[in-house]
């Protein structure tokens, strides 16, 4: 990323006064230092990346790998099928994230509530989070995907797409509930005290004072989870859902060429990298805001 120190903008100040000779000297020196830094960074990048590339290209198996993994003509042939599969992943991600949002918020509110009537639910929510955070997602997908149809309950769906989505929602809700809960707990008790002293009930305090601040604070980790969710939707392919991963699998098993996997990976990256960069920006902004509040 960028240099940590803020870039100096000398142009804006020029109109306010004429820089002293000493300042002009410093500006020249600063530019020289910057040039040197850029030169070092470029040289080191070229050296490291070049060494890596030559290591790969000169390896004994490179010719074979190039043909089986990077056969671009075959890649463009299967691109359509894999893109179609990726649409499934994206749709699944959108639907799942909405359901996860609702379910996770419910879990987080239950775990942080102190109401006597909700005691059994608080206990259940805690147990739920413990269990689903502790089981690998792949196992949950297999258990739900193969277990639920085996029950043969009338009216219950056998669609692998729906069952796969349900499994993802169940697991991710546990993660997201914990993120939300940590956000709720991070709000200083004095905020709650101020709201309660105004006569707001505990649920009004939660709704109008605690939650808006808590959710804002956990947006960066939630975006992180969204990226992870998109990738993990690829796991439902194990049930036979024709998503990008499954489409790539089908295409490569037909010809024993692995280029479709590389294509699928690139397609995922096309979505996840911008999303990750956006997350970084949101995070940087929120850190800046918190620091500003701390100094006030």
């Amino acid at each position, binding site marked *: 990323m960028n240099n940590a120190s803020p870039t100096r903008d000398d142009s804006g100040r020029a109109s306010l006064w004429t820089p002293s000779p000493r300042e002009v000297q410093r500006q020249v020196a600063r530019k020289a230092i910057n040039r040197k830094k850029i030169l070092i960074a470029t040289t080191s990048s070229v050296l490291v990346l070049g060494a890596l590339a030559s290591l790969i290209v000169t390896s004994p198996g490179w010719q074979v790998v190039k043909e089986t993994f990077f056969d671009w003509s075959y890649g463009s042939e299967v691109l359509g099928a894999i893109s179609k599969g990726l649409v499934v992943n994206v749709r699944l991600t959108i639907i799942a994230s909405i359901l996860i949002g609702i379910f996770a918020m419910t879990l987080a509110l239950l775990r942080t509530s102190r109401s006597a009537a909700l005691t059994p639910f608080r206990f259940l929510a805690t147990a739920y989070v413990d269990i689903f955070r502790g089981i690998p997602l792949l196992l949950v997908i297999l258990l739900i995907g193969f277990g639920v149809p085996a029950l043969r309950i009338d009216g219950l769906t056998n669609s692998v797409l729906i069952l796969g989505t349900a499994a993802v929602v169940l697991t991710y809700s546990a993660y997201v509930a914990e993120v939300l809960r940590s956000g709720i707990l991070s709000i200083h008790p004095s*905020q709650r005290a*101020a*709201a309660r*002293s*105004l*006569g707001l009930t505990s649920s009004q305090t939660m709704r109008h*004072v605690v939650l808006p601040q808590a959710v804002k604070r956990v947006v960066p980790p939630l975006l992180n989870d969204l990226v992870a969710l998109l990738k993990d939707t690829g796991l439902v392919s194990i049930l036979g859902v024709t998503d990008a991963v499954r489409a790539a699998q089908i295409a490569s098993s037909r010809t024993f060429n692995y280029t479709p996997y590389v294509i699928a990976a690139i397609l995922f990256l096309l979505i996840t990298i911008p999303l990750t960069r956006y997350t970084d920006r949101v995070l940087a902004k929120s850190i800046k805001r918190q620091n*500003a*509040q701390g100094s*006030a």
Partner: protein
Amino acid sequence: MNVLEVKNLRKCFDEHLVLDDLSLTVPDHTATVLIGASGSGKSTLLRCVNLLDSIDDGSIFLDGREISDPGIDVDEVRRTLGMVFQSFNLFPHMSVLDNITLAPIRVHKIAKTQARDEAMTLLRRFDLADKADQFPDRLSGGQQQRVAIIRSIAVKPRLLLLDEITSSLDPVLVNEVLSIVRDLKTEGMAMVLATHEMGFATQVADEVCFLKNGKIIERGPASQVISAPQHLDTQDFLQRVHEAGRL
């Protein structure tokens, strides 16, 4: 008529007795000022009256009704009390106007337009009308604390509790905050305030109570407790305040 009556109040944190058999009476339209070193129990007393802290013995009456009863509706009690904190505690995600109208709209079910009109009237009165749409972090400490006071009186409380409201302020900002309190006192608002500002205490107090180790050591009009303290502990405390240049 007494707004507040505290009888034989005891409060402990673990093994430490913070309030020790403390009794206090606040008649309507009067100001009671609590003075004493940090840790003497001033803030805890205010928090107990507001039911933010539970009490361990004794009883508290508000307008003759016991509010220390376990079955009491705490939300309903707090609706009749205003509280201002040392650290302002404005809601950072809301504009100044929304901070002030939150309780009137949500708790007292006043129509939104009316609540906003009333809030604007208060803001204008205290020279803050131009800050109505700003967020708290754009305001100076003194402005934030004035907004916090307005927020607490917007619900027309029976009794105002002010907990060292100027202690985290720049000395030059203290006066703009205290002048609001002086105004409210003139209007007849009953209040209990914990403060280190002895000059201010002398101006507004109908009664001054000096606290030490959770007990009221000396009480009476400011002319007595602050100007001519009888008790050795009070003299010692005021001497130290004087040396710190706050008298």
